[in-house]
């Protein structure tokens, strides 16, 4: 995927001003409005911008590239078909897509007959890998939405390590309370408590983050 030309910040500018502009053009309708108007070009723009994030999320859960691509396709198809019928018109587009993708991926994970083997494989690869691996590619900071990624990571880093683990296993690994308890060797009640405490903090930290796709 190639980022839009205006997404690359000029060198030497302060971090705050280096944030890529939201994926919309001044004077034009929002991407959402254009999607509702069945603008095929808007769909292509959305796919270009959102696919890396959806793939990253879904592939982290499923640990399978082909299945991840299928889920991403399902997600865009749902978005294209239902964008006009989604009740809350103020709901941000990108979180909506990510939620669809994540739910679909977890549904698949739980349907799998071999899911346990897959999670074992995920464990061997490092279940926390995709969500915690530092991002070191030099040109990726120009990626649309990267500033949100950094903000979320900053919020995650404020959590105690044990809460981070629970959040990542549940939210990015698709594991249930009992599976996390088994994985970490702690009581299920402790898992629930850690998850609840972590999410209470995260919602405060993340709520102000605006969608970068408008």
């Amino acid at each position: 995927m190639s980022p839009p030309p205006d997404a690359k910040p000029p060198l030497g500018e302060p971090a705050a001003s280096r944030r890529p502009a939201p994926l919309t053009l001044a004077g034009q309708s929002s991407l959402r409005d254009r999607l509702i108007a069945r603008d095929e070009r808007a769909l292509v723009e959305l796919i270009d911008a959102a696919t890396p994030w959806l793939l990253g999320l879904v592939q982290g859960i499923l640990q399978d590239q082909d299945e991840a691509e299928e889920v991403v396709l399902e997600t865009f198809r749902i978005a294209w078909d239902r964008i006009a019928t989604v009740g809350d018109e103020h709901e941000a587009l990108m979180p909506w897509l990510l939620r669809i993708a994540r739910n679909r991926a977890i549904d698949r994970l739980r349907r799998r007959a071999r899911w346990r083997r897959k999670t074992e494989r995920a464990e061997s690869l490092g279940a926390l890998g995709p969500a915690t691996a530092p991002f070191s590619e030099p040109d990726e900071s120009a990626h649309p939405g990267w500033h949100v990624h950094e903000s979320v990571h900053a919020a995650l880093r404020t959590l105690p390590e044990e809460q981070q683990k629970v959040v990542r296993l549940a939210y990015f690994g698709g594991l249930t309370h009992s599976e996390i308890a088994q994985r970490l060797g702690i009581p299920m009640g402790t898992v629930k408590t850690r998850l609840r405490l972590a999410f209470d903090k995260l919602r405060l930290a993340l709520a102000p983050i605006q969608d970068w796709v408008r």
Partner: protein
Amino acid sequence: MTPHDWYVENRVAFVARALEASEERLFSDHLPRCEECRREVARLERDLGALPMAATPVAPRPGLTHHLADAILYRRVWWRRAGPAFAAAAAVILAVGFGMRERQQRSTLTSALTDRERELSALRDTLSIWRESQRVVQRDIAMGNHRGGLLIFDDPTTHRWNVVMHGLPAAPADSVYQFWFITRSGMVRSVELRCDANKPAFATLDMPKTPGPVMGAALTVEPAVNHSPEPHGLELAHVQF
């Protein structure tokens, strides 16, 4: 602790999809019935909307985004691409349909034309005789809803009488249409005429072998088994020559 407290406690776990399958079903069933939980779950989802962005983006393999767009727009693209082929197929089907209908119509018309030519030929024959006739008698006859008639004309070449009965229904059950000559010595029984509304009866009759001239003719409805020398049934027509 009330039963609802369990739902309050597990809202976060529901949004995180950390509940066990049975618990998740229980919570999903509860949501449509509980405005408060619905609102809180929606709020949690909104507040945590950016959390999935923690996942590291993965560069799609070459051509994937193009494939995704094509796959989603496929239906419309497919229709657009297949449009001409469908139009051609539809044209062929219509042409075949019209062709078959045309063929059927042609066959029906040919058959009707043959019938008309046959009728015309018969009429020409009749007219060729009639043209020479010196005596022509026509009577209208009504039978129920049917309007028909009796046409009698002589053939001076063969010295015969031509009788045409038309437009009348088939004779009532156990009855016949009976044609009579009226002579100076009385009624002379002639032929039974058989017709229906669509098919006229035509007969060429010799002069009755009775003394004296023929003065007229009559048409009656007689019992089929009664061959009385005198008419007894309903008289439909009575003509004088």
